[in-house]
């Protein structure tokens, strides 16, 4: 049902020229992912609305928006939320086109795919809108499916707003300042960094293989190669963990990870939070009173 594949890789730019080999597909997916992270650095330094907010405020308000999205049930208000994500994107100097594309690729596409059967009489019986026998599309079916698609799109949109306008390092500082234990923050930081490093290695592996393959190779062969490469990455990871530990020891690591905290919220940040709370309340009220279920 939910495919395990609504992954970053599937949003990677696709080349038109024929079927790509498995190695190429993975390499492209990785390149796409790495590119996104580096692009994030650039986007996060633009002088847009979201970028200028204190990362703690951003984190809190986005969680608030995600939660509110789960309480809104009427199609019109869900649509309002989706439009709100686009407006916030635009106000943050993010191209609405690429924002919409990413939301579609990561959540919208599969949302439509998954909710399609729910629109039919098989799952949601009721007055028929488009007659297709047992798979006729029903009116309540459209509501159920539409609700899901819009909700998923709004949720993905709000999440993406935070991801694209905040540097990971700033988000971590925000988490640390909001009570997440130091060790957790340190591990998150190190993981992200190791991910970038591993991704580059793995990408090169795939490209190297691609450049040496004269033909596509059987699925079994390729699988064998994937397994062997993953084992290599496993060994390499263990070794790197040892090396990083040595490096930490060499700088006097005592087992704790204190850090310098210096986040200060400005008036603008509080204003933003207040505005978000007011807007959410508004949306919820209209949802419940104007469009009751």
């Amino acid at each position: 049902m939910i495919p395990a594949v609504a992954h970053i890789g599937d949003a990677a730019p696709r080349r038109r020229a024929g079927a790509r080999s498995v190695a190429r597909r993975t390499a492209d997916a990785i390149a796409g992912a790495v590119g996104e992270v580096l692009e994030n650095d650039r986007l996060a330094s633009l002088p847009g609305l979201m970028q200028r907010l204190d990362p703690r405020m951003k984190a809190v308000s986005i969680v608030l928006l995600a939660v509110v999205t789960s309480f809104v049930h009427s199609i019109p208000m869900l649509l309002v939320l989706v439009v709100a994500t686009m407006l916030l994107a635009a106000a943050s100097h993010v191209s609405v086109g690429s924002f919409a594309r990413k939301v579609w690729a990561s959540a919208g596409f599969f949302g439509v795919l998954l909710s399609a059967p729910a629109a039919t009489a098989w799952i949601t019986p009721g007055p028929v809108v488009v007659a297709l026998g047992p798979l006729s599309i029903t009116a309540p079916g459209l509501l159920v499916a539409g609700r899901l698609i819009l909700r998923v799109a709004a949720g993905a949109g709000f999440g993406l707003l935070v991801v694209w306008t905040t540097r990971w390092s700033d988000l971590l500082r925000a988490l640390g300042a909001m009570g997440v234990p130091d060790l957790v923050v340190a591990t998150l930081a190190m993981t992200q960094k190791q991910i970038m490093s591993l991704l580059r290695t793995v990408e090169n592996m795939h490209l190297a293989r691609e450049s040496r393959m004269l033909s596509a190779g059987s699925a079994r062969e390729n699988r064998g190669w994937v397994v062997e490469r993953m084992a290599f990455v496993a060994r390499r990871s263990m070794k790197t963990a040892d090396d990083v530990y040595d490096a930490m020891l060499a700088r006097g690591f005592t087992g704790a990870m204190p850090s310098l905290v210096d986040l200060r919220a400005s008036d603008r940040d509080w204003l933003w939070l207040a505005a978000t709370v007011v807007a959410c309340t508004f949306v919820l009220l209209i949802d419940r009173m104007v469009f009751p279920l």
Partner: protein
Amino acid sequence: MYGSDMCALDRIDLTIEPGEHVAVVGANGSGKSTLLKMLDGLVFCSSGAIAAFGHTLTEDSLEEPALRREFRSRVGFVFQDADVQLFCNTVLDELAFGPLQLGMEPDEVRARVAEVAAALRIEKLLDRAPYTLSGGEKKRVAIASVLTMRPQVLLLDEPTNALDPRSQVWLLDVLREWKAAGRTVIIATHDLTAAAESCERMVVLSEEHRVVADGAPEDVLSQRALLLSVNLIHEHEHRHGGIGHTHDHAHGHTHG
């Protein structure tokens, strides 16, 4: 070495005086990195002893907080792979890590960080994540992260590897400054030219992990047969037109 039962070093007997700049040279696999890690109390020998500042270094002795603090603040290690060494969230955190671990007050830490960042000209990089930096920048940050602890002894593992020519020249300048400041420096390298330029003492490790030479660079480098036998240089033959020409070729010479 990871997963190895082989003897990593064999009968090493070295004494290093304060203020000395020593180059430990040898072919890859001769045990240079392991020796440096032993000197930094990261790897421990199964027989023999290492002493620094009047204390013996063992796994247990370094667990003791007072000795650990003293030792770690006086000896800094710059790893071969800067990526391994940069494990914090931002460059600022990286520079602050050491002093914070030593228990210094946040204000004092901030001051130290500002001082070292200015000295190495990396102020603009302070709020960047290390994995977004270029190779040369990473090396600077790696060195800066060690310098904030104000070490008297610096261990550098293959410092010129993977550095572009300009950064290599910069590094040699830094070494010269440290010499003038009286810091002790031990460099593990297979770059004979850099070693000769920055150090007044050269120790040669053979591929059997033994010390085979220990003296002034000019003397050591003149022992051609010895250098050939430890695989630090090899004879390289090429032709000019119809005439064959043989000369000695060392690996790792990088700047011009």
